[in-house]
């Protein structure tokens, strides 16, 4: 067993230690906290690279190594935990530690004015530790624990500025919404345990729950509605992923989560945590793809595909009309997560995870870029109040443009194009239905469109932020920021190097990643499923691939072109102008602007019903239970009155008499209590003499 496998646990434990230590630090120890967090992340990154090197050049089953150990034993049952090292794990840990380190460094600049700097890095480290633990876990229970820890860290970080009511509400919303998915997830775990008797994924004797014996047992067991146990468990586990990854019914928390600090949005709500759901599906893929007898397609994967496709188009549709720079990116994330799910559902682990990895880089880049913009524009988040920033912030502009092109899928040199193309390719080959393909294509078109719209608003034209300056800074998002900055002219300014450097590195990675992800040499996707990649020109130049490349290229070009036509030709002059798109399609635009009113729907249904139920319980408590309690109380009072009479006339009389006697006796005895220590000592001495005498005489008899 190699050294790195033995010590894989160090990767999550180092950030955990950093979190623990910085939790004990005092507020002024800012540089120490930041140094600890970045240092631990850097060390974890080095370890991750070692783990990565360990998996290189291994193919098939040999690429998976794991280490299990006993956690505790209850009677005969031994609960075992462990960690697993395979390409999936290695790629994820490298990505998380690398992107995480950059985001940590960025945060040093972004949070430099915040008084709770130390706490921020404590939370970030805690999050990183939990996320890394989630990735390396070889046990569903351990994965779930880390999953919940990740959720907790996300809650803490979204609500980092908890004095803002919106941030506190967003944190609560994120926590509760993901909890709904987690309940099902936990049910799935429990069911899985009852079916297989273990939660380890892989074991030395091949009895793990993702291995042949357990899978065969599960697929053979049919439960309610003719559903095989494996399918039901797969669906339940997917519910967890829905909650965490912001898939369609439970996506509402993710855009609100943008209330947190921007590095948090980049790290948690774009690159890593939301990808945990996708990762979960990829991790339990052997379970997901089990084909139930009598059904043509694996049921869980079908659900994954459809939910993913719908989310992809939904997110893109909403993103078209938003005005908050971070919200656009948030809905874009929802949409891209849908893509990943769809990729997993129709193309397998390689396709979905490939998009996850590339997306992590360019979405982190975009979020950090938006953070830099927000920072530069004095905490302004509304794109209508920006504009013309290109000339103020050239570095941010260049890197942001790279990110935007990667997200839109500009052909050939951006990795985003190739990973998205893989998904579309797989969708084209999807047998049961072509609808996901067209949904995906529509999503791609919209993505290009809304990103162009955002770019035009932010960078083109001239700066529109001055209009707001006349008003008092009424909606200043965090008070400690830029107190000194209010004096000088309120032009946007470029961010410090500590913030632009991570941007540049991420932009470089976004481009460089292309080298290993084209169909010419598809090293990254093949690595993820532990197969050797070959340089194969034929793969690129066969008719199907080529056609698809052209089609998606055209679609992207169309999206960008349309966006430019709407927004780029005539940049907005004033912040409160009507959106050009709104002028054309007012009704549809209203739907999109209102996010299809999902939040309102939930408020009108689930939340309201819940409140009703609460009121009902309250009424029940007050009317019925309180009455009972009062009755008991009255009865007790009545008894007490009777007892009081008895007390007064019987007990008290006797007691008084007794007391008089005792007092008389005590008065006599108190004469002995002279207060003179010598007298007491003398008595003790006399008693001693007496006792020794008796003892001596008695013993000698």
């Amino acid at each position, binding site marked *: 067993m190699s050294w790195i496998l033995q010590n894989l646990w160090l990767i999550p434990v180092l950030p955990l230690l950093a979190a623990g230590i910085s939790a004990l630090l005092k507020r002024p120890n800012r540089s120490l906290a930041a140094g600890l967090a970045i240092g631990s992340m850097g060390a974890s990154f080095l370890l991750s690279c070692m783990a990565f090197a360990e998996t290189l050049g291994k193919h098939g089953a040999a690429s998976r190594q794991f280490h299990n150990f006993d956690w505790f034993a209850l009677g005969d049952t031994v609960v075992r935990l462990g960690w697993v090292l395979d390409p999936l794990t290695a790629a994820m840990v490298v990505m998380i530690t690398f992107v995480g380190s950059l985001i940590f460094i960025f945060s040093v600049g972004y949070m430099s004015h915040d008084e709770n700097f130390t706490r921020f890095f404590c939370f970030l480290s805690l999050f990183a530790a939990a996320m890394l633990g989630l990735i390396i876990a070889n046990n569903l229970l351990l994965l779930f624990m880390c999953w919940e820890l990740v959720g907790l860290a996300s809650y803490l970080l979204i609500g980092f500025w908890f004095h803002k009511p919106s941030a506190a509400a967003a944190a609560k919303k994120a926590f509760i919404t993901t909890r709904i998915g987690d309940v099902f997830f936990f049910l799935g775990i429990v069911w899985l345990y009852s079916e297989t008797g273990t939660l380890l994924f892989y074991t030395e004797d091949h009895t793990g729950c993702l291995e042949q014996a357990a899978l065969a047992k599960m697929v053979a067991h049919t439960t309610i509605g003719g559903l095989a146990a494996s399918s039901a468990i797969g669906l339940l586990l997917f519910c967890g992923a829905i909650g965490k990854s912001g898939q369609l019914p439970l996506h509402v928390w993710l855009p609100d989560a943008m209330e947190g600090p921007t590095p948090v949005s980049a790290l948690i709500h774009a690159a890593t945590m939301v990808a945990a759901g996708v990762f979960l599906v990829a991790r339990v893929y052997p379970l997901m793809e089990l084909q139930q007898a009598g059904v043509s397609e694996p049921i869980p994967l079908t659900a994954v595909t459809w939910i993913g496709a719908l989310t992809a188009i939904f997110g893109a549709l909403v993103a078209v009309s938003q005005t908050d720079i971070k919200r656009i990116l948030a809905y874009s994330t929802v949409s891209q997560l849908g893509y990943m799910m769809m990729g997993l559902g129709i193309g397998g682990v390689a396709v979905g995870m490939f998009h996850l990895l590339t997306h992590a880089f360019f979405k982190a880049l975009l979020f950090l870029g938006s953070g830099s913009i927000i920072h530069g524009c004095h905490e302004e988040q509304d794109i209508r109040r920006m504009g013309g920033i290109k000339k103020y912030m050239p570095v941010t502009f260049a890197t942001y443009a790279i990110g935007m092109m990667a997200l839109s899928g500009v052909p050939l040199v951006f990795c985003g194009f190739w990973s998205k193309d893989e998904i579309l390719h797989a969708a084209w080959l999807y047998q049961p239905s072509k609808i996901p393909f067209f949904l995906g294509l529509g999503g791609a078109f919209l993505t290009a469109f809304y990103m162009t719209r955002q770019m035009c608003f932010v960078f083109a034209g001239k700066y529109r932020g001055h209009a707001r300056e006349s008003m008092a800074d009424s909606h200043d998002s965090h008070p400690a920021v830029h107190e000194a900055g209010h004096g000088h002219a309120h032009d946007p300014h470029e961010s410090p190097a500590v913030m632009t450097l991570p941007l540049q590195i991420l932009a470089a990675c976004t481009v460089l990643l292309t080298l290993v992800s084209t169909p010419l040499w598809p090293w990254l996707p093949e690595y993820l499923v532990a197969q050797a990649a070959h340089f194969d020109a034929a793969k690129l130049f066969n008719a199907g691939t080529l056609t698809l490349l052209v089609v998606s290229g055209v679609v992207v070009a169309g999206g960008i072109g349309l966006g430019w036509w709407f927004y780029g030709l005539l940049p907005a002059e004033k912040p409160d102008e009507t959106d050009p798109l709104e002028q054309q399609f007012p009704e549809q635009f209203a739907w999109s602007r209102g996010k299809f009113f999902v939040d309102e729907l939930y408020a009108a249904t689930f939340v309201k019903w819940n409140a009703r139920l609460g009121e009902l319980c309250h009424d029940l408590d007050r009317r019925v239970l309180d009455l009972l309690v009062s009755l008991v109380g009255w009865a007790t009072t009545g008894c007490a009155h009777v007892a009081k009479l008895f007390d007064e006339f019987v007990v008290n009389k006797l007691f008084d008499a007794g007391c008089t006697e005792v007092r008389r006796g005590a008065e006599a005895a108190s004469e002995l209590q*002279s207060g003179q220590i010598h007298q007491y000592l003398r008595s003790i*001495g006399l008693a001693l003499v007496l006792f020794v005498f008796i003892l001596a005489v008695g013993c000698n008899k």
Partner: protein
Amino acid sequence: MTPLSGYLLVSALLFCIGLAGALTRRNAIMVLIGIELMLNAANLNFIAFWRFSEHPETQTGLMFALFSIAIAAAEAAVGLALIITIYRHFRTANVDKVEEMKG
């Protein structure tokens, strides 16, 4: 070699001197000194009995003496602190003047 009774008699003598002092002296510190003497007499007894016992290798007497020394140290510290406080309060350390608790 001195027999056991020699040590026991010395110990008894010390004890009674201490007792006499504690019974007669008016100053609280002197009373405490008397008590210390009595404790030491008891220690001497422990050691003497240990030395003359049939199984001295068990060291029980030594242990008892050690613990008793430690306790005596604690007792002296607390006792003297109490006396100092009494002195501060009553402006005297004579125990026969401190009789507020009499019946």
